[in-house]
């Protein structure tokens, strides 16, 4: 999917640029009036006052200590979030509003300064990089807050659904329950049963949790304003933790057959094993690594595309108001289109992560059928290869 998305995005960007240049040349002839207004409107200006799309995008897809709502600079409105820092001098807890958007230092056990969205330790008015390195940052950042919100959302949704199951024993699903049930049955029948086999029930809680965690957070990421908007599933830390959980479950459930296939593939001559075993061992770690990268790249790409389209408005807006307005129409149209794509991607990536996890679990608990080993290797390789295209 990332492949298709990136291809599409390249194409659409080229088209958008082309149309934008065309509209610019038209507007320039009778609507070219560079005003101070346009430059003031743009967000994320560099020191020189010019609009910097790269900075805007990096800020939006990255993490921050406060939850920015609107406005900029000293007039910005942001939800303050707790900052939790641990250093040699002890634990410091304060609200992110204390920084006043980087204008003031916070004096606690250390003196902290917010620089380029990073907290630095300041000593005698100078940033001490060595002390900053030693800082353990457990702050409730925008992403952590979003994680907590989605955690409550997940708990609320599924506990209420579970309640309605208890209240309506043997009856047809109703309301939220009837929206969730097809997804649960989809994960059970099309993901777990087909990939893991008869022992699928053991893995269902993890697969369902991962599926709905990724799906809900992907969707929340598409909502532009609080409590959405955080690029949570497009954050490498989140993806890494999810992939690590999958790896731990693979290790916890793997049997002798699985390890024999990695260290000594049956029916392979010894000299080939010298090459094959390191590759197989690498594969064990590489699989969850690819899981992480796939989810991270897909979701981040979606956010970058949407932001890039909006940045176009301000880039052209700096040239002339007319051009900015002209591009705005196109940008919004493309972003709406990409929004629908992202809705699909939100589901697809949740599905792919769950499916691949389920397939790895299936491989880990598979019992040996040595007569069919070649067929097995083939059967497993194919769907994986297909999904790697996504």
């Amino acid at each position, binding site marked *: 999917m990332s492949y298709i998305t990136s291809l599409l995005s390249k194409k659409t960007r080229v088209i958008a640029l082309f149309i934008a240049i065309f509209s610019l040349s038209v507007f320039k002839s009778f609507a070219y009036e560079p005003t101070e207004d346009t430059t003031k409107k743009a967000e994320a200006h560099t020191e020189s006052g010019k609009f910097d799309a790269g900075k805007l995008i*990096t800020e939006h*897809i*990255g*993490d921050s200590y406060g939850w920015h709502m609107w406005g900029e600079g000293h007039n910005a409105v942001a939800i303050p979030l707790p900052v*939790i820092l641990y250093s040699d001098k002890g634990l410091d807890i304060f609200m992110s509003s204390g920084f006043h958007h980087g204008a003031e230092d916070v004096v606690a056990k250390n003196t902290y300064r917010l620089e380029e969205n990073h907290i630095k330790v300041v000593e005698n008015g100078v940033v001490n990089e060595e002390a900053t390195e030693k800082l*353990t*940052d*457990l*702050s*409730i*950042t925008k*992403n*952590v807050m979003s*994680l*907590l919100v989605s*955690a409550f959302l*997940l*708990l609320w949704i*599924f*506990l209420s*659904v*579970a309640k309605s*199951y*208890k209240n309506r*024993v*043997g009856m047809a699903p109703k309301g939220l329950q009837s929206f969730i*049930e097809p997804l*649960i*049955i989809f994960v*059970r029948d099309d993901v777990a049963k087909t990939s893991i086999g008869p022992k699928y*029930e053991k893995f*269902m*809680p*993890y697969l*369902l*949790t991962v599926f709905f*965690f990724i799906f809900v957070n992907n969707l929340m990421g598409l909502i532009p304003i609080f409590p959405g908007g955080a690029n949570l599933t497009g*954050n*490498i*830390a*989140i993806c*890494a*933790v*999810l992939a690590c*959980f999958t790896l731990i479950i693979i290790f916890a459930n793997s049997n002798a057959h699985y390890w024999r296939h990695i260290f000594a593939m049956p029916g392979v001559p010894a000299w080939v094993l010298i090459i094959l075993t390191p590759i197989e061992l690498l594969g064990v770690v590489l699989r969850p690594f690819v899981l992480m990268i796939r989810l*991270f790249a897909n979701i*981040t790409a979606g956010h970058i595309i949407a932001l890039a389209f909006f940045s176009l408005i301000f880039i052209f807006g700096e040239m002339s108001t007319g051009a900015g307005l002209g591009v705005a129409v196109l940008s919004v149209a493309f972003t709406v289109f990409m929004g629908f794509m992202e809705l699909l991607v939100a589901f697809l990536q949740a599905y792919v992560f769950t499916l691949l996890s389920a397939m790895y679990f299936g491989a880990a608990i598979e019992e040996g059928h040595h007569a069919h080993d070649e067929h097995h290797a083939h059967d497993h390789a194919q769907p994986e290869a297909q999904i790697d295209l996504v």
Partner: protein
Amino acid sequence: MELIKPAIGLVFWMIVTFAIIFLILKKYAWKPILDMIKEREEGIEKALKSADDALETMRELKSSNEKILAEARAEKDIILKDARDTKDAIINEAKAKAKVEADRMVAQAREAIQTEKLAAITELKAQVATLSIDIAEKILKEQLSSEEKQKTLTSNLVKEVTLN
């Protein structure tokens, strides 16, 4: 580079939060939900199977009903045929009896008639005889009423008697 460097704080909170979500949902959501879905599916399967069974029983019942009905119909036919036969037999017997009786009565009547006839004839004969005697008497009386006549008769009778 900033993007692909996992932040330790986020990793920590993610592990804690995800583990909590997982454990709570596992115990209080996934287990009851999956159990209920399974239970319901089994219930539906069972209901479908019992419906099938009921249909099968119905079909069997229907076929046995039809068999019984056919048997009853056959029996009815036999009974009807028997009844018809009996009726015919009774009628025939009655007819035969009636005929015999009628014949007997006719014969009796004929006999009576014969007897009556004979009696009538006998009486007639007797009456005729009486009448004949009366007439003969009268004629004799007439013929023997005068001397002359007696002589004539005697002479005639004498003439008639030819001595051979």
